């Protein structure tokens, strides 16, 4: 064991349960499992637990909904490791070895069971100029605001789809942005139908009304979408259309995005079944792979309240034969129904398929144009010929777009699932058999 730099030695953490993702679902799962006495590690890419919905500035207080859970997580005995990207997951005799990069160091987690709480990301549909600085995600804008960005005085248009537009519009208005327009691509009739459906869930209707009140001075329109962004080196203006006429707005920021899509890359790497883009689970949140559970948005877009319930179901049953409580199962069933109705309303309209032209970039990492991939038979062939989807984001941005535009099936997922330092990729615990529990120490100490 000599001759290697110490950075190549991974820190090793052994646990009963490894939770990947510290949003509401991951936190609820970690809390429920840890409070049963299980040794739980919960890891997340972000700087603080909370995920996207509960994101808050480092050192600042979380929102009233989030704070009790974050406090409970801290008291639960679960170990939270922030700033950690999962690179690979390997099954072994006693469970799984998760290889991650944490603070530029390799981190190996041995766990008997895994709970995937990998959340969701935004769907982007490429259009001319969407790569200009100043064109951002709708959720991305919310994340930037929560990270300390100031939008005061910025001319902003939100053009995309889905319920996420309302809270972000409210946040921008509160932050002093000059919010010119909120443009929903879905048809007026569909949005009205959605709003009517909210009567079945009065709390959601009240929430939507509360958001709308905060940006009343801005226009909200349906059946309208962005077709191009213009500018030299940064965004200067955008073109919008309602299908009949087109017009331009001078803007500093365009927030765009077409709803949320589940993050299923790690699940696919492990071999979990994916159904309609989400991780397939049974009523105990179990995937088809033994000892791998999944909760929250990664199992289907449903919102934080549903993620909390699913997390509690997974955390209360993982590693045991206990059935989940009937109370939790009933609350989950009610929330799943409401979420399903929402997705149909905000499905991207057919016209959006003709947004990208031959020279429109679709793969932002490798600068591959739509024309370069259009003729390919499948994602695999396009990757081999053009490097589409082979840059640092590993196709997380372009492949869902190409799935929408060309109906491609996602290519297989291989490690590393995220770019990683060579020291992480090559970190091995040479000569060491799978450790017996308990073991929580760095290899640096263990081999002294």
């Amino acid at each position, binding site marked *: 064991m000599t001759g290697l730099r110490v950075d190549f030695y991974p820190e090793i953490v052994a646990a009963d349960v490894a939770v990947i993702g510290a949003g509401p679902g991951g936190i609820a799962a970690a809390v429920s499992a840890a409070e049963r006495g299980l040794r739980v590690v919960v890891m997340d*890419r*972000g*700087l603080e637990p909370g995920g*996207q919905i509960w994101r808050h*500035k*480092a*050192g*600042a207080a979380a929102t009233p909904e989030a704070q009790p859970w974050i406090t409970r997580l801290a008291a639960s005995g679960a170990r939270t490791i922030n*700033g950690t*990207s999962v690179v690979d997951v390997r099954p072994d005799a006693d469970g799984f070895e998760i290889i991650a990069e944490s603070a*530029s160091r390799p981190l190996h987690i041995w766990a008997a069971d895994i709970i995937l709480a990998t959340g969701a*990301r*935004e769907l*982007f549909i490429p259009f001319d100029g969407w*790569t*200009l*600085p*100043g*064109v*951002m*995600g709708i*959720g*991305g*804008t919310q*994340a*930037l605001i929560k*990270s*300390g*960005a*100031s939008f005061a005085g910025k001319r902003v248009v939100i053009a995309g789809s889905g319920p996420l537009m309302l809270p972000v519009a409210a946040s921008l208005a509160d932050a002093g942005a000059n919010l010119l327009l909120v443009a929903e691509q879905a048809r007026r009739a569909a949005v009205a139908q959605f709003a009517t459906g909210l009567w079945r869930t009065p709390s959601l209707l009240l929430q939507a009304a509360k958001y709308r009140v905060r940006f009343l001075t801005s226009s909200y329109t349906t059946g309208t979408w962005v077709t191009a962004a213009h500018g030299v*080196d*940064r*965004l200067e203006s955008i073109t919008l259309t309602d299908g009949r006429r087109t017009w331009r707005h001078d803007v500093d920021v365009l927030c765009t995005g077409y709803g949320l899509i589940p*993050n299923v890359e790690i699940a696919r790497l492990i071999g979990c079944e994916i159904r309609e883009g989400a991780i397939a689970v049974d009523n105990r949140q179990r995937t088809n792979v033994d000892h791998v559970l999944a909760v929250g948005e990664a199992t289907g877009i449903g919102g934080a309240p549903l993620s909390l319930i699913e997390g509690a179901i997974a955390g209360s049953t993982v590693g045991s034969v206990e059935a989940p409580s009937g109370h939790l199962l009933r609350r989950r069933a009610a929330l799943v129904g409401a979420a399903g109705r929402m997705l149909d309303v905000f499905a991207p309209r057919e016209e959006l398929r003709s947004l990208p032209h031959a020279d429109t970039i679709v793969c*932002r*990492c*490798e*600068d591959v144009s739509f024309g370069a991939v259009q003729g390919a038979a499948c994602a695999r062939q396009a990757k081999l010929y053009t490097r589409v989807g082979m*840059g*640092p*984001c590993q196709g*997380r*941005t372009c492949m869902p777009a190409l799935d929408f535009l060309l109906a491609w099936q996602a290519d297989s997922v291989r490690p590393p699932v995220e*770019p990683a330092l060579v020291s992480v990729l090559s970190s091995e615990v040479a000569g060491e058999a799978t450790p017996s529990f308990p073991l929580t120490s760095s290899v640096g100490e263990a081999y002294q």
Partner: protein
Amino acid sequence: MPRGGQSRISIVINGDRVEVPAGITVAAALFNLGITALRMSVSGEPRGPVCAMGVCFECRVTIDSRPHQRACLTAAVDGMHIQTASTS
């Protein structure tokens, strides 16, 4: 602690020392300074943050000599040196 009770830290962006609120991310600090182009793409286009949650890798900058760090996932720390792409 200066007024408002919010402590401030000092970081260096492209050689210039600036004060930013403690707890802010590098991406938010750059946004507030009007620096929109964080990296140059493989074909030489300027790019800025898109997802702001670590997925898209568009906000990569050099932090304390480490290239390809995601500005959105990095908290600004007192004394940190940040280098963005040059668009000139």
